[in-house]
């Protein structure tokens, strides 16, 4: 589904032959690691092992170079000036929109709205779609394993509109219970908003089924793809979702940029979210006419540089291939699950059959925060805490977990380092 960036693929294939299959699945991870300057960093004298990719990902050199190039040679405001730089900046900005459209396989560029991140994408829908479509007595369905950013906007909307928020429960593996979802759906259901992949425990939700079932009842569907887009191919046409959001910084791009995909007809029916420059076609003190899509939802000067860089990021990951990235990360997940299971007293939280490369765990009675501090001294970066998903922690009866989340630049050697460091944690606490 991605059609760009053949150049890098061919160079990687050549390199691959030389590495003698060192990377699994014909995936030359050592070559990929060279693309990410920060991976050479030492932390407390040890090589950095970055396993906090669900929080944010590291940036390849080509992306950093694009940012420098933009500010060095192009910088101007967009959609306004008649001068050369403004035209160039506008062209690059709109080129990124085309790249996102192709990357998600959306039907039209008008359906790609640039926002600050997945959180703002969800808030945009909650405000704008909510204003137009949600009425007293309506129902919105989310799931028990959502990030707070896919809970709180709906709580606020429901409180304002006197609508009801319903929650799909999960089983002991952390999978949504679809029979219960069936029971929650009713003619009052106006929107179903679920994550594609759980940030806290890695479950890949069966969103295609969830979307089809909601549509049968007449409900719209938003998918929070923050944890999916960086790690697997996503095709919004095939999914048939009404909205899909993701954040650039989780897919090796800059912070402060995100994407809201929405079906054109629906976006046309929705009122503007924020108002100001760029989202208008003309303004008098009596009346303002709004601009057409996608500009209607892009008030004010956006993060132009970040959005241009996002286009470069999508070229980069497409050149490697999202299918290959997904396959390699699945291999890492299987290895990490095996190695961590071997650590005594380690309990993996979230054991769904369909999982992304995220392993959340507890280690005996040692608090996750202590685990995190000790691993940090070994150069290993993981996330500890509730992962902005407190209902998940409550569901599994733990106050917090330690979470290792992987990207395609991680290696099995790094997983070995993690397993060894966890044994050290136990030693500090006198358990080994």
């Amino acid at each position, binding site marked *: 589904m991605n059609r760009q960036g053949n150049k890098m693929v061919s160079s990687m294939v050549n390199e691959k032959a030389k590495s003698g299959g060192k990377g699994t699945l014909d995936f030359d991870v050592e070559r990929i690691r060279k693309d990410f300057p920060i991976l050479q960093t030492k932390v407390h*004298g040890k090589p950095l092992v970055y396993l906090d990719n669900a929080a944010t990902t590291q940036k390849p050199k080509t992306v950093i170079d694009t940012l420098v190039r933009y500010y060095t040679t192009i910088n101007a405001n967009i959609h306004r000036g008649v001068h050369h730089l403004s035209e160039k900046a506008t062209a690059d900005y709109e080129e990124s929109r085309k790249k996102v459209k192709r990357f998600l396989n959306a039907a039209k560029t008008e359906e790609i709205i640039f926002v600050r991140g997945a959180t703002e994408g969800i808030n945009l829908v909650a405000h704008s779609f909510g204003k137009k479509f949600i009425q007293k007595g309506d129902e919105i369905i989310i799931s028990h394993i959502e990030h707070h950013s896919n809970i709180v906007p709906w709580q606020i909307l429901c409180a304002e509109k006197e609508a009801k928020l319903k929650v799909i429960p999960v089983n002991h593996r952390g999978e949504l219970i679809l029979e219960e979802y069936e029971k929650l759906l009713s003619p009052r259901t106006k929107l179903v908003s679920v994550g594609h992949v759980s940030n806290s425990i890695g479950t890949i939700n069966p969103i295609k089924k969830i979307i089809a079932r909601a549509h049968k009842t007449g409900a719209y569907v938003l998918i929070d793809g923050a944890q999916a887009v960086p790690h697997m191919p996503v095709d919004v046409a095939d999914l048939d979702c009404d909205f899909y959001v993701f954040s650039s910084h989780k897919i090796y791009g800059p912070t402060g940029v995100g994407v809201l995909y929405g079906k054109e007809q629906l976006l046309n029916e929705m009122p503007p979210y924020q108002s100001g420059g760029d989202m208008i076609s003309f303004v008098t003190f009596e009346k303002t006419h709004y601009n057409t899509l996608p500009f209607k939802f892009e008030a004010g000067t956006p993060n132009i540089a970040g959005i241009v860089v996002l286009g470069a990021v999508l070229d980069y990951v497409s050149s490697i291939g999202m299918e290959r990235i997904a396959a390699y990360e699945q291999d890492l997940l299987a290895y990490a699950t095996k190695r961590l299971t071997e650590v005594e007293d380690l309990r993996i939280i979230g054991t769904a059959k369909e999982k992304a490369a995220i392993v959340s765990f507890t280690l005996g009675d040692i*608090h996750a*925060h*202590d685990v995190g*501090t*000790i691993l940090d*001294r070994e150069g290993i970066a993981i996330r500890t*805490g509730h992962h902005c998903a407190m209902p998940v922690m409550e569901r599994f009866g733990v*106050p917090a977990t330690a979470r290792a989340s992987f990207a395609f630049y991680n290696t099995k050697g790094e997983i070995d380092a993690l397993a060894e460091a966890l044994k050290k944690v136990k030693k500090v606490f006198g358990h080994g």
Partner: protein
Amino acid sequence: MADLRDLYQEVILEHNNKPRNFKVLADANRKAEGYNPLCGDRLVLFVKVDGDTIQDISFQGSGCAISKASTSMMTSTVKGKTVAEASQLFEKIHGMLSGQLTSPVELEKLGKLQALAGVCEFPARVKCASLAWHTLKSALENKSNAISTE
């Protein structure tokens, strides 16, 4: 570079394993909740104040080794002290955790609470150690709301 042993000293690990005064105090007349949203540490302090004196004190809750040990050591230190003495101690601990109180003579006066001095080398963990003390302050000032380190 601070060593891990500066943070996880024996006395801290020991208090984490066997926290003192870890129970509900039925006849408490002051109570406060402490919460650290960053790591999910939660504790409830029960205090029995008689006149000016902290007659008894206990706690419940869950948290990391640093927060649990800090709370355990705090309860065993302030038990029997006056409210004014406890407040003075709060200031000193605050100084130690923020790295401002460094005089060996002053630190020595803190007895086993000195074990927490290593925490100031681990900025992300300072709140874990200070939660118990902020919660104590809140209980003694009789604020009913849950206190948070954020």
